[in-house]
């Protein structure tokens, strides 16, 4: 299965600034997903990113706040814009290969102060 390298692993940011999280996959994946997770809790899907098209956002998430890029089949970025303390969370990317092969990055722990 694919291996995803996600960075940064953690960051502490000032409110009002933006942070871009990167995910690099060691092989091509058809779809990539971005999630948010509070420690010890379940994952909430932010958006689905396909190459060459705009990301599809879930209810409660908008492109202006979480712009996503997917320039090719092995790379994607998520930006958390104009951050506030409520954005403090763990952000994870995931890639899909075939019908059932899903792999996750190790996550980015974001703290906004």
């Amino acid at each position, binding site marked *: 299965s694919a291996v995803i390298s996600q960075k940064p692993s953690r960051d502490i940011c000032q409110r009002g600034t933006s942070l871009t999280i990167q995910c690099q996959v060691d092989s091509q994946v058809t779809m990539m997903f971005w999630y948010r997770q509070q420690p010890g809790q*379940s994952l909430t899907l932010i958006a689905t990113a396909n190459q060459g098209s705009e990301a599809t956002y879930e209810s409660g998430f908008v492109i202006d706040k979480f712009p996503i890029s997917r320039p090719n089949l092995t790379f994607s970025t998520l930006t958390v814009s104009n951050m506030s303390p409520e954005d403090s969370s763990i952000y994870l990317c995931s890639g899909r290969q075939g019908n059932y092969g*899903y792999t996750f990055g190790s996550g980015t722990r974001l703290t906004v102060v």
Partner: protein
Amino acid sequence: TQLLEQSPQFLSIQEGENLTVYCNSSSVFSSLQWYRQEPGEGPVLLVTVVTGGEVKKLKRLTFQFGDARKDSSLHITAAQPGDTGLYLCAGVDFNKFYFGSGTKLNVKP
């Protein structure tokens, strides 16, 4: 509201005990997956079940998909401290999958 509800939410047991985690939904899924996540790591896929009524075994772990493909269970036999972690079910529907509410398992030596 969570599309998939897991129970129990927390479970603390002694090494050697058996346990079952449930994942229930009112929706039908084309497949269902189980993941285990440790602190500071992403979820790791344990199994995918596709057919209603399907049972899969992975060493001491037994996974079952409900006949109607709305629910699933994970049974662990003779739990070990290494089984400690957050267990998540995920229902797959077309190109999306929805995570369950999670079960935190702690196995004490």
